[in-house]
């Protein structure tokens, strides 16, 4: 295939012609660029100490290294060394290194499970029968037209950039699986389709963790939680403000979503 391109547009046009099915699914290119050069820039920008206390916030100091790590441009070891070099005491990089280890953990599981990562690891803990979940992703979700400002904005961002913050991935997955009762596999495939770091191990096993087929209980959230970690940006402008699916206490949502008492 060609190696000479005068511009990124030219590359995009060439790839659209060579991979028409992929382009038909979504022709956008991400602002995040591939290549060792881009990986190095990201690595130099990491702030593991800040990460330790703000990583759950959407505007927190997350590294955005995942596409580079996923494709071997950087090893987990290199990321760890860079983090240690950035702090006075290794302890200050502990949270960051723990997250790197999550990837290693999923990869080790992948070695034993293979394509089994597409199957439930354990029965779900929601009290609902497998038939309660629909098999395909509803179109309003895939197109970012649910009417929920947060969910729609996550979809728009995912489609445009191929990246989502970890917390947004968790909320989105919980919305798909628990609030809309869709099989986790449909959501996982949607993510693999778009994520630059898309990896069947980290992705599918995280979906299973949310779904509770690889966890002791399902992961879900309420609006208060989302509002806190997003600074309220989505909720403020949301057409469903005050009456959205996520309103209520955890106890109320638990009653609404599941068939068993979790707490």
């Amino acid at each position, binding site marked *: 295939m060609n190696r000479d391109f005068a511009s990124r547009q030219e590359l995009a046009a060439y790839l659209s012609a060579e991979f028409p099915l992929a382009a038909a699914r979504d022709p956008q290119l991400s602002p995040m660029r*591939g290549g060792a050069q881009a990986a190095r820039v990201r690595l130099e920008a990491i702030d593991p100490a800040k990460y330790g206390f703000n990583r759950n916030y959407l505007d927190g100091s997350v590294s955005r290294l995942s596409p580079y790590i996923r494709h071997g441009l950087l090893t987990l070891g290199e990321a760890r060394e860079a983090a240690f070099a950035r702090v006075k005491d290794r302890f200050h990089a502990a949270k960051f290194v723990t997250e790197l*280890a999550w990837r290693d953990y999923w990869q080790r599981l992948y070695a*034993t499970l293979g394509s089994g990562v597409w199957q439930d690891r354990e029965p779900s803990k929601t009290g609902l029968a497998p038939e309660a979940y629909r098999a395909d992703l509803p179109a309003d979700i895939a197109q970012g037209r649910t009417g929920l400002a947060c969910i729609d904005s996550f979809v728009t961002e995912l489609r445009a950039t191929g990246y989502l913050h970890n917390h947004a991935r968790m909320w989105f997955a919980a919305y798909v699986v628990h609030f809309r009762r869709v099989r986790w596999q449909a959501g996982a495939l949607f993510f693999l389709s*778009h994520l630059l770091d898309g990896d069947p191990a980290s992705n599918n096993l995280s979906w299973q963790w949310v779904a509770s087929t690889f966890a002791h209980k399902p992961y879900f959230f309420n609006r208060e939680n989302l509002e806190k970690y997003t600074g309220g940006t989505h909720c403020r402008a949301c057409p469903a403000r005050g009456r959205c699916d996520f309103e209520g206490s955890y106890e109320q949502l638990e009653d609404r979503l599941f068939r068993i008492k979790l707490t």
Partner: protein
Amino acid sequence: MTPLLWLHPDCLSLSSPAWVRYPGAPALFVFDEAEIEAEQWTLKRIAFLYETLLELPCEIERGSVVERLLARRPARIVTVGSVNPRFRDAVRQLERAVPVEVLPAVPFVDYRGTLDLKRFARYWKRVEPILFDS
């Protein structure tokens, strides 16, 4: 006898063990159309890999990984290990036709023994001291 370096989506770095061992060897990356369709990749995923490959001294093709590699009639193939089942299948198929050397990827944790992977907490109990020690 110069081997053919097989690049795949898990090892796209010049400091990957295959290049370190065989600097200057011809290298080939094949966009696996079966994988792209199975995972429904959108164009941005392909473009990200493509931009990465443009910085590497390699040739790029698309189609069936095994077919494209064997079409080069290599005397042998060298690559870096991956736990992806597609990679493992491809290695098995290639080995029927040509010697394949799979170099281990650089491990994150050099743990000797079997790790309990039932839950992250069990794994973490074993690896945490190693990660913060070395």
